[in-house]
């Protein structure tokens, strides 16, 4: 019983792999049907993954989003969940070929550090920390999905614009659907990230004594936040659509990735805990 969480994590990992392979296969043989099946497989993986969180919570008694590995697994979970939610409305099956490999890779990294029990340093034992992580990670997952849709948009757009009638055009979703997903992800991701950062700084004030530390991670996140604000403004007020918006959302996500990955790996930051 005590290892149920790990069992579900492993199951989710395997099923994520199957769905990623299924999506790849659908791209390779150019049949949407395989992608449809893979969507259901991804849903199964998502359910297993959710069970992991439930059992993890029961076992440890703390919201399992605090350590770096837990956060990565939560990131993967949020991405898969949001993608699946989109499938209810717009049938952009093949987009999963971009989403599922990312979730699988995140899960691989996450699973390496989720074996034992993580004891939190005292400073993180605050109710604000999980709230901060959940808001920020869901926001970032939305941005990740926005850039998946953006990347796919650019590919499909290039094919249509240059009249390259490969069979990819047929299985890729329509430009309008991809643009809509990109747009919606930005619309939801931005306020969530904003709230996440605000909650984080409220916590920082109680833990470190000030709202803002000019920590490299904070600086890069702020840069990405401004860039997203600009993109959202261009989209809503100026009427940026399609190619330009897709390209820009990819560039901004690159900044966000620096904050998420590069900083934690190569810089000294107050944000690396466990």
């Amino acid at each position, binding site marked *: 019983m005590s290892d149920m969480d790990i069992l579900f994590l492993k199951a989710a990992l395997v099923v994520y792999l199957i769905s990623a392979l299924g999506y790849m296969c659908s791209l390779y043989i150019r049949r949407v049907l395989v992608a449809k099946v893979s969507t259901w497989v991804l849903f199964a993986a998502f359910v297993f993954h959710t069970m992991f969180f439930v059992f993890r919570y029961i076992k440890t008694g703390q919201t399992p989003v605090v350590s770096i590995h837990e956060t990565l697994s939560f990131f993967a979970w949020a991405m898969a969940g949001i993608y699946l939610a989109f499938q209810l409305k*717009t049938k952009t099956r093949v987009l999963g070929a971009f989403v599922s490999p990312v979730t699988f890779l995140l899960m691989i990294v996450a699973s390496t550090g989720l074996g034992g029990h993580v004891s939190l340093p005292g400073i993180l034992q605050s109710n604000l920390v999980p709230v901060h992580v959940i808001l920020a990670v869901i926001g970032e997952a939305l941005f990740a999905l926005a850039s998946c849709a953006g990347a796919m948009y650019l590919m499909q757009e290039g094919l*249509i614009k240059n*009249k390259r009638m490969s069979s990819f055009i047929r299985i890729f979703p329509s430009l309008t659907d991809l643009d809509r997903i990109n747009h919606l992800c930005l619309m939801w991701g931005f306020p969530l990230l904003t709230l996440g950062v605000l909650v984080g700084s409220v916590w920082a004030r109680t833990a470190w004594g000030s709202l803002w530390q000019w920590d490299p991670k904070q600086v890069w996140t702020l840069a990405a936040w401004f860039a997203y604000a600009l993109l959202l403004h261009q989209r809503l007020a100026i*009427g940026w*659509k*399609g190619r330009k918006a897709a390209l820009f959302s990819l560039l901004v996500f690159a900044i966000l990735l620096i904050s998420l990955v590069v900083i934690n790996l190569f810089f000294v930051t107050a944000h690396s805990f466990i």
Partner: protein
Amino acid sequence: MNIILIGMNHKTAPLEIRERLSLACGDTVNPLIEIMNIPQIKEAIYLSTCNRVEVLANAVDEKGAMDKLKAFIFNHGNLSPEEMARCLYLYYDHEAVRHLFRVASSIDSMVMGEPQILGQVKDAYRTAVEHNTTGVMLNKVIHHAFRTAKRVRTETGIASNAVSVSFAAVELAKKIFGSLKGKTILLIGAGEMSELAAKHLIKYGVEKIFIANRTYARAVQIADNFHGKAIEFDRLQDKIQDVDIIISSTGSPGYVIDVSMIATALRRRKNRLLFLIDIAVPRDIDPAAGDIDNVYLYNIDNLQDIVDGNLQSRKQEAEKAEAIIEEEVSNYREWYNTLEVVPTIVSLREKMEGIIRGELSKSGSWMENLTEQERNNIEILANSIINKVLHDPITSLKEESRDNGALPYIAAIRRLFGLD
């Protein structure tokens, strides 16, 4: 198998001969009634489309029936025997079944994979059913043909890609806009191809259509056909910024729409995607307009390239379709072969059941002492013994029949059990 098929199609007979035949059959007589007058024919289906005239029949004497059918076609088509030999194809048994499956699956069509033919075969079948000219054999084979056609459609890409310019335009529009519901078109100029494209777009959900023409009266006339709205030619700029798709096919020697018109429109429509289809020769829309962001410009050659590519890929898919058809023909043959053992199996069962009934009634006197429950149990026991005994011989008979080798076994069983 007793199934025969006679006919001519676009590959074997020129249009005027097919025409003569289908006209003669359509107007003056009901061909089915005449065909059913042939004594050797038990069931018949008559199929006539622009590209083919065919008769599928279940005949007692295949050769004799075929000769009569030839004579029937000879009479109506006014053909000389030489001409007839060149135009007609005759198929017997599984060859006939295969041909039917190929026709229904649209492999034999002029435009391979076109969807109408299956509907036409269904109509022909319905007519035959209404005239009561079908029975067990043709019902079975035609339903098998429908099933094969469905498999070919879903398992191969034979029907998936547009093979006409107007459909290629619809497919592109769907790849740009997703759903076409609520989208609007502007039709500039007139022409068969552009109107066809507009018609298809409307079929797929486009809601509003505007028509511009140098002659306003002509625009009004076309607008009436489409339930659209005619607009003045000099108001083109205003409309370009509203609509989603523009189809242009004027006879104008120069560009009707230049880059600045599109650039202005795009700015005003806040960069909403715009799909331009230029069917005119010489071109109506400055090709440089296609370089503007969020504008997709296709001319007639671009669309034709798509169609050519799709035709090519349909040919590749056709190979897969042929394999499916082969598989289904052999499924059908298996089913057909089991038919010959069915009467023997039935009479074997009847004989056994008769024996049970006889023995039970003989034992009636002493069985009266038993309760109803006990009598039922004895009956059930007797039946299950018979079923167990018959199980192996019946299974083997069915197995043998699949390879067409059941006849000696049938003879042996009939003799051993005294079934004749």
